[in-house]
C-alpha cells in the first residue's frame, strides 16, 4: 500500500509527545526516533531525562570540546549532564524503571496490537542475533508507555495490528500511540483515536490500520 497522505512530520509527532508530558516528569526515551522528543520540550517545562546506563538528568549532545567519552546515553552517543543530575549503577537504574518511578517512556515499535501489546525488539528472524536491552524492563515498569512510530512499515504494512506477529516486548503495556497519521490511546484493551493529521479521516485511518479503531464520543 502506498500512502497519498504523509501526515505529520515525525518531528511534529515528537513535539506532540513533548507537549503531552507534564512538567516535572521523569522520562526515558528509546534509541532513535524517540530521542527527537527531547528537542521539543516547551520552554518553562522541566523534564528530567533518565538513561538506563546510569544517569538521571541527561542533557543534550555537548560541544565537541566538552565531550567525555565516558558520558553516553543508552544509544551510546555522547551526552551531557544537567545541573542537578546524578550517576548511579545499573541495579539502581533499573530500580527506577522496574519500581515504577519513571513517569513516561517513549519507544519505537515494530507492531502494536489492539490490546496494547508491543513488539519492538525482534523480528523473530531465525538467523538474526536477538538483542533486547532494556525494552522489556521499561514496558513492565514505567507508568506510561508511549509509542512513536510511522503508521505503516516501509513496505506499507500496518504496524497497528489485531495481534502482534513479532515476538512481544510486553502484553497490554502501551498507553498511547503517536504516528504520522494519528494519536491513539489504549483504554481497556481498545484503541481510541484522539487526533488525526490534517487530511486524514477516520475511515481512511481505519483502512491503514489492521486493529479496530474507536472514537471517543
Amino acid at each position, binding site marked *: 500500500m502506498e500512502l497519498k497522505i504523509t501526515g505529520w512530520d515525525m518531528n511534529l509527532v515528537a513535539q506532540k509527545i513533548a507537549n503531552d508530558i507534564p512538567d516535572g516528569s521523569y522520562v526515558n526515551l528509546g534509541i532513535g526516533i524517540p530521542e527527537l522528543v527531547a528537542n521539543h520540550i516547551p520552554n518553562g517545562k522541566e523534564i*528530567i531525562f533518565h538513561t538506563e546506563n546510569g544517569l*538521571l538528568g541527561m542533557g543534550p549532545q555537548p560541544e565537541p570540546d566538552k565531550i567525555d567519552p565516558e558520558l553516553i546515553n543508552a544509544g551510546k552517543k555522547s551526552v551531557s549532564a544537567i545541573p*542537578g543530575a*546524578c*550517576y*548511579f549503577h545499573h541495579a539502581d537504574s533499573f*530500580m527506577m524503571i522496574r*519500581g515504577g*518511578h519513571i513517569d513516561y517512556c517513549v519507544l519505537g515499535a515494530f507492531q502494536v496490537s489492539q490490546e496494547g501489546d508491543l513488539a519492538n525488539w525482534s523480528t523473530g528472524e531465525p538467523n538474526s542475533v536477538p538483542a533486547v536491552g532494556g525494552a522489556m524492563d521499561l514496558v513492565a*515498569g514505567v507508568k506510561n508507555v508511549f509509542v512513536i512510530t510511522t503508521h505503516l512499515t516501509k513496505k506499507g504494512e500496518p504496524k497497528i495490528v489485531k495481534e502482534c506477529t513479532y515476538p512481544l516486548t510486553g502484553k497490554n503495556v502501551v498507553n498511547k500511540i503517536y504516528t504520522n497519521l494519528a494519536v491513539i490511546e489504549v483504554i481497556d484493551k481498545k484503541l481510541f483515536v484522539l487526533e488525526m493529521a490534517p487530511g486524514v479521516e477516520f475511515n481512511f485511518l481505519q483502512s491503514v490500520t489492521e486493529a479496530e479503531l474507536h472514537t471517543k464520543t
Partner: protein
Amino acid sequence: MINKIFNSPAEAVEDIFDGATILISGFGEVGSPIELIHALIDKGVKNLTVVSNNTGSGYIGLAALIENKQVKKVICSFPKTANSVVFPELYSKGEIELELVPQGTLAERIRCGGAGIPAFYTPTSVGTILADGKEKRIINGKEYILEHAIKGDFALVKCLKADRYGNLVYNKTARNFGPIMCAAAKTTIVQAKQIVDVGDIDPEVVVTPGIFVQRVVSVPNPLEESVLIAENRRYPWN
C-alpha cells in the same frame, strides 16, 4: 519547574491519612526525622503501620507517636533500646501489634519495595521461629525462605543536604535506612539540614536521586532525641 520544597513539616505531612503505612528512617535516633514525626503527632492521624528499625526512646519522636496511640502496628527488627519505654509497655498490654523482622531482611524487603521486586528468597532466619509459616525452598541444595516486599504510602526521612529536585546526601551513619525508604514509598517526605541550589551536589556523590523524593522541608537545627530525653522532655512538649 520542579520544586519539591515545602514550607514546613506541617505542610509536608498534611495529606497523611488514617491507616497509612509509613516508613521512618533512622537507626535509633541517628537519622530519625523527629520534626516530621512531631508534625504527624500534631496532625493526629491514627491506625498507622510504622516500618522502622526501632520503636523510639523516651517520649520523643517515634516513641511519642506511639505513646500518642497513633500507631496500630510496627514492623521492625529491634523494638527495644536502652531508653525504650513506650513500646514495651503497650506491647505487654497487647495494645500494639509487632511484626518482628531480621534487620537485613527488613532492609531487603524495603529495597525490593522500591525496586519493583515483589518477593525474594533469603537464607536469613531459616530454621528459626521467624521462618514459621513462610514458604521454604531448596535452591542449589541450600534452604531459603520467601520474603515479600514492603512498600509505604509515605516515607519520613532525614538527610543532610537536599536540592529542589529532591537529590539527597546524608551524614555518616545517619544514612542507614534513608535511601531505600525514599524509593519504597509513594510519597517520600524528607527533612534536610540544608537546602542547596540545584547543581551544588556533585552528580557523582548524590546518594538518593531526586526521582525517589516527592517533598523536601528545611530543618536546619534538628532536635537531638538523646539530649531531650536526658532533660526529661516529652512531645507534645511538657
